[in-house]
């Protein structure tokens, strides 16, 4: 027992010794906190004042957020340093007199309002944010005690609505909310070098002007367009209408802020025949010499598949494309099978969001399960909804030799290797160029209005009825045209889409793509091509003709005029 007591005493003694150590550690820690407090409260004061003075001597404030520029270096987004006026009402000796003087400089306030603000029992009150330099000068001259300015930075977009859907805008604290401003928020907020986009402001302007004129002419509810470099995926112009002024983005309505190019997904109609043909040719199930019977409509369950420009006979593969035959396309797709179709469209990126650098990205809508009827309708672009951005990037791969590039809004440096994913063979791509040229060149093609003399335009029309509340509306169309130029060696893809255009007298009441979207493509290409370094050629020159030669393999000796 005694031994145990001794041991207990020893343990207690050791505990006490160690408690002293604990006490010492705590004392040291509390002293450290105390010293740090004194350090901050007393010693750091002077340093700060010095830092402040030196900043004022230099007279410059570091602009924080990086600029955004187009591919030529044109400013798209920058910062403006402004002054905001605030007051410490407790230091304003005569609020009524001060208010009267202030009201003369700030006419939007009445003297009574300002008197109320300046007599408040508070130490801080904002009077006006973002003064003009003149206002700041005038207020300084008034010499009212108790007023002061706070330097602030305001994001400005010198070109306003022109690039609104690409560049996006920031919130009150300069944080990116939409577009590039949001997707590159962290980089931009870090300051430093300007972010250079792939956009060319000149082409952007042309595209927006032509689109908005056409929207007005055909009383469409909106539209969009896209010019993309076929070899690199760089987006040279991208417009969604209606748009908004990002300098006052909070006044814009939801429709104006909706990005129809990347966020909107649409059933795009016959432009999908491009991919149907490419699939059929690339897989070898048919060739340019092959063809399908399009003599009568297809009836499946309660559906009937008809041709808009009905020829009602056997059609060759080029004829199916040129006449835009739904029946022929559907048969071609059935021949290939749903699985191949699904895999091919998936390879082209149609079943996923694109990887373009925008937060506003629409997810494609496609049928699950992928039934036989879906296979048929998808062959001519119904039953699958994708964004115009998808269309542009996949079309580029069809005509550039067969390489798919991710669409990008960032300028590629010339030294960067161009990586693409092969999706079709060079031969198939060759045939696709010829087929698309046929649509514009041949008198029976649907895209004659897209022609731009000298620039050898090729393309495909697409007119789809819009589904509203699960039903197709015959009067509500999405009319689109995807064009490429120059067809002998395509450099750019142009997509134009009009949302619900209405027929007019000049178009004989038609609101279809050939009448509405195709002319925009023609006008955009003829103005933009010289700026993009594409020189016009003689379209009848033998080498051009050779590069685009195509036999129709028609079984009709002379093609009927209509």
């Amino acid at each position, binding site marked *: 027992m005694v031994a*145990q007591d001794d041991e*207990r005493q020893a*343990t*207690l003694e*050791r*505990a*006490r010794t*160690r*408690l*002293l150590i*604990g*006490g010492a550690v*705590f*004392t040291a*820690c*509390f002293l*450290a*906190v*105390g010293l*740090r*407090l*004194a350090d*901050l*409260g*007393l010693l*750091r*004061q002077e340093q*700060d004042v010095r830092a402040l003075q030196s900043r004022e001597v230099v007279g410059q404030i570091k602009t924080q957020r990086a600029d955004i520029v187009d591919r030529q270096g044109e400013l798209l987004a920058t910062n403006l340093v402004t002054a905001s006026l605030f007051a410490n009402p407790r230091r304003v000796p005569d609020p009524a007199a001060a208010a009267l003087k202030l009201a003369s400089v700030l006419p939007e306030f009445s003297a009574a309002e300002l008197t109320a603000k300046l007599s408040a029992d508070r*130490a*801080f009150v904002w009077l006006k944010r973002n003064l003009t330099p003149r206002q700041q000068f005038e207020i300084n001259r008034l010499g009212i005690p108790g007023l002061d300015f706070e330097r602030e930075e305001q994001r400005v977009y010198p070109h306003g609505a022109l690039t609104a859907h690409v560049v996006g805008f920031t919130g009150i604290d300069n944080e990116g909310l939409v577009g590039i401003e949001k997707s590159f928020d962290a980089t931009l907020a870090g300051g430093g070098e300007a972010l250079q986009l792939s956009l060319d402001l000149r082409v952007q302007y042309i595209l927006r002007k032509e689109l908005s004129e056409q929207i007005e002419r055909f009383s469409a509810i909106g539209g969009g367009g896209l010019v993309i470099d076929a070899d690199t995926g760089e987006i040279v112009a991208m417009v969604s209408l209606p748009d908004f002024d990002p300098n006052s983005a909070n006044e814009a309505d939801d429709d104006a802020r909706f990005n129809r190019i990347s966020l909107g997904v649409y059933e795009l109609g016959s432009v999908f025949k491009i991919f149907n043909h490419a699939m059929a040719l690339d897989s070898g199930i048919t060739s340019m010499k092959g063809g399908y019977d399009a003599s009568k409509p297809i009836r499946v369950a309660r559906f009937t598949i008809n041709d808009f420009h009905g020829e009602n006979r056997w059609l060759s593969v080029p004829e199916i494309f040129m006449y835009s035959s739904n029946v022929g396309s559907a048969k071609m797709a059935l021949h290939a099978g749903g699985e191949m179709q699904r895999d091919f469209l998936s390879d082209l990126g149609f079943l996923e969001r694109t990887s373009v650098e925008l937060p506003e990205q629409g997810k494609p809508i496609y049928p699950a399960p992928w039934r036989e009827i879906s296979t048929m309708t998808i062959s001519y672009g119904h039953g699958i909804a994708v964004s115009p951005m998808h269309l542009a990037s996949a079309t580029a791969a069809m005509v550039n030799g067969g390489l798919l590039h991710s669409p990008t809004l960032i300028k590629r440096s010339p030294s960067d290797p161009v990586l693409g994913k092969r999706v079709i063979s060079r031969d198939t791509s060759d045939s696709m160029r010829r087929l698309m040229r046929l649509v514009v060149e041949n008198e029976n093609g649907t895209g004659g209005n897209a022609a731009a003399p000298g620039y050898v335009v090729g393309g495909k029309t697409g007119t789809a009825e819009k589904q509203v509340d699960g039903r197709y509306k015959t009067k509500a169309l999405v009319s689109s045209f995807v064009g490429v130029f120059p067809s002998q060696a395509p450099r750019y893809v142009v997509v134009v889409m009009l949302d619900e255009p209405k027929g007019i007298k000049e178009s004989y009441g038609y609101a279809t793509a050939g009448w509405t979207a195709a002319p925009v493509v023609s006008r955009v290409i003829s103005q933009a091509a010289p700026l993009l370094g594409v020189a016009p050629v003689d379209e009848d020159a033998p080498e051009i003709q050779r590069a685009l030669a195509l036999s129709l393999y028609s079984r009709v000796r002379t093609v009927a005029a209509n």
Partner: protein
Amino acid sequence: MTSIPRTDTSILGRWWWTVDHLTLGALAALIVFGVILAMAASPPVAVRIGLDEMYFVRRHLTLLPVALAAIVVVSLMTPAQIKLFALAVFAVSLVLLATTLLVGNEVKGARRWLNIAGFSLQVSEFVKPSFAVVAAWLFAKEARKGSIPPAAICLVLCGTVVLLLAAQPDIGQAVVVTSVWLAQFFLAGLSLWLVGGLLALAVLALTGAYFVLPHVARRINGFLDPSQGDSYQISRSLEAFRNGGLFGRGPGEGQVKNSLPDAHADFVFAVAGEELGLIVTLVIVGLFGFVVLRGFTRAFLEQNLFLLLAVAGLLTQFGLQALINMGSTLQLLPTKGMTLPFISYGGSSLLAMGMGTGMVLALTRRRPGGGGHA
């Protein structure tokens, strides 16, 4: 107060003459500062999150009497009652802690709160003091041959608590619990080799947390390199201390509370620095230090190992929390959500602190034959 005669043998009378007046006074002073700062710091926060301006002040003032009652009632207990009381609180908290993981409210990515009858409870606050007493009890118990050594049970309990806290995840609380437990183990006679080993293990565990839990990594990166990452709160906090200077801007006149979301809780000390100034904040630091050291002195004089370990454990928790909170706002430590005892807003923290300091007062009361006579 002097109107209570020494011969008064009623329960309260005896309490008054045996309880440590100086600690009681220091705690009262801290509580008063807490009320002042709740009124100064919380209205802008309440307005910002869409509540009535005086919402937090009212809550603080409603819970304060409960906390005060907890201090008095708990400090009336005898050491034996404290043991049982702590054991009961610990057992219930452990169950609730496990429940929190299952049905707790997820706030900012962690499950730390349990809704009980409209009152949201942060159970971890109650685990800390009750476990300190239970651990002291186990450490002070001598091992008997043929049965499981109490220190082993204690290790298992500590492991369970830390795991439950880490699962929420609440690394800060897990660190506090582990530190207090290690401190007690150290006092109880842990060999210095083992102390070193356990410290290494703790460092290892924290390194693990750094790599496994992104929010921990962010905080620590932000501390090591203030230029990168989210150093907004901390730079505003430091600015507040500088703005305050020696005498402060006066209660209510500060600006920092307008820009700090946690001005009434984790960053309340910065509000104190700006509005009350250096002198008062030094007084607050002094009060915390005094409570800890005064308690240590009383514990030093005890003849009973359990009392020494329990008091030291409870005060280590109290002091450590204060140091972590103040250290965070002063950029001496990475920012860590930890309340400043009696001063930060937070119902669970306030009640648990009342309970914990009540235990300290109970265990340091003068007892016949217990030593600790002045």
